[in-house]
């Protein structure tokens, strides 16, 4: 087994673990962690592909590596947005669960700030 095969299997396993964590953990922060795991698995797969594309005096295909840099940065921004939503909701309600039905019962009086 060579390096690309080893890390290819690692990447696949990371994605699998991330999928498991995503489905099993109900709490949003754990889901964001699982999303990052899936993301890292996908990135590792890309790095494997870049490594296999070494040619023309370069140690790896530069195009997938450039794509990776873009994807890592975008993924951080996504985590930041998710964390922002979680913290704001926590500041407002004190909860951070996706399951709790926050919907008020139909017909209840609503404040003027409600969505129109």
């Amino acid at each position: 087994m060579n390096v690309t095969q080893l890390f290819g299997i690692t990447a696949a396993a990371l994605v699998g673990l991330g999928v498991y964590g995503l489905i099993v953990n109900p709490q949003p922060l754990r889901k964001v962690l699982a999303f990052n795991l899936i993301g890292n698995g996908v990135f590792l797969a890309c790095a494997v592909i870049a490594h296999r594309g070494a040619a023309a005096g370069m140690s790896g295909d530069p195009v997938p590596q450039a794509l990776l840099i873009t994807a890592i940065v975008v993924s951080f921004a996504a985590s930041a947005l998710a964390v922002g939503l979680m913290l704001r909701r926590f500041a407002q309600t004190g909860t951070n669960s996706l399951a709790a039905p926050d919907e008020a019962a139909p017909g209840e009086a609503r404040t003027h700030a409600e969505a129109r």
Partner: protein
Amino acid sequence: MMTPALAGQSTPGGLLLALAVLLPFAGVLAGLAPGGRHAQRVAWVTVALGIGIVLEIAARLLVSGDSLRYALGGWAPPLGVMLRADGLSVCMMLVVAVVVGAVAVYANGDFGTPSGTREARAPLAFWLLLLAVWGALNLVFVSGDIFTLYVALELLTFAGVPLVSLDGRAETLQAALRYLLYALIGSMLYLLGVFLLYGAYGTLDIALLAGKIGPGPLAWTAVALMSAGMLAKTALFPLHLWLPPAHAGAPAAASALLSALVIKGSWFVVVRLWLDVFGGMVGGSVAQLLAGLGAMAILFGNVVALRQARLKLLIAYSTVAQIGYLFLLFPLVAHDEGARAVTGGLLQAISHASAKAAMFLAAGLIYSTLGHDRLADLRGAARALPMTLTAFALAGATLIGLPPSGGFLAKWLLMSAALASGQWWWALTMLLGGLLTSVYVFMVVVRAMEPAAPGWSPKKPVPRYQQLAVLGLATCSFLLGLAVLLPVDMAQIGRTVTTQAGMP
């Protein structure tokens, strides 16, 4: 499928494609820096200019009869990124421009900066996000590179999610978080497909890939991953759970953008992939599966819509159902009437976009007038807002599929394609869906037309221009069926005949 030789050359006027994407983004920059009321003014100017650019692109497309192409940076694929606009792209860009314009007019009432404050949070965020959604969608439609398409999808997600939680209530924050998680997983699955395709074929360009892709485990996995990711973002049954609270909880103008436009972005990616990238490879049982999910969405969405107690939730579940129609075109494409199915699907997307936007905006006006949107207590709305209820009825007629609306023409094309290829069960599903939709549309209109309780008066006056904007949008969707009179089938410009599917 395009030949690789033609794929790498820019056509005159291709710069317009880049401008159509960058103008809204430049508007976001120009609006954010000064902030306050300037953001709104910048948005108006950008909307006007942007509509002009899209019209110019459409004119050039019709005149040249071929797709517009542009090699960014002067670098041709596989090294560089190509923008491509065929008939499908341009039709979608047109409807997005029209809906954005109408929403921009409407939103002056809801998101004007109040006098006395220099800058307020929700208006600033709204105008910037409006332009952001527009630019991201234009990029989805013209991108000729699957990785740039990934970035476009992320742009769309980042623009759409804050629209859901714009009013800051706890339940919309929860809905926004759920939407974000679905959207992020969808993008990640899509990205994995992109990397697998690059690993297998060494290019990210759609035209070049179309020439190289053949059946095999890598291609099959890529199409499965990318489609699954897009289905999560388009909220196709059974991945629709995030949509109703998100679209119903957002402010009316934001709901219009989300339900009418943002959803179409990920659907368009599926169309691009299945029709262009994976060309003749997907067909048969896989397409039947996709359309089967669509059929279940139609039935499930409509049935649940009937049981809703609030107008906005009813409209949101109606979106879940209408999205199902968009996926019925896939099993019909590989046959002789395939072109008809593509045009039908496109027309369904366009009609739904304009009709759903009109519906959500109308619901917003009804809420302003009544102070609530409970379906049981809609009486008096028609008297107070005659134009708006007419708009709602027209939009509903489009969703049901009554002539001469765009919805009617779309369903006609899809049904005739289904019957021509012997797949009568899809035609039956469409008829059933239309029937169910008519039930709740009539219910809403009839309830609203009941006379108000004596002594009731509107909670707040609704400006005329808002009602006109909604009516205008609804009328557009209602008259789209007249597109059958156009001399040229715009959806087919730039497309070649698809070959028979290689059965899995």
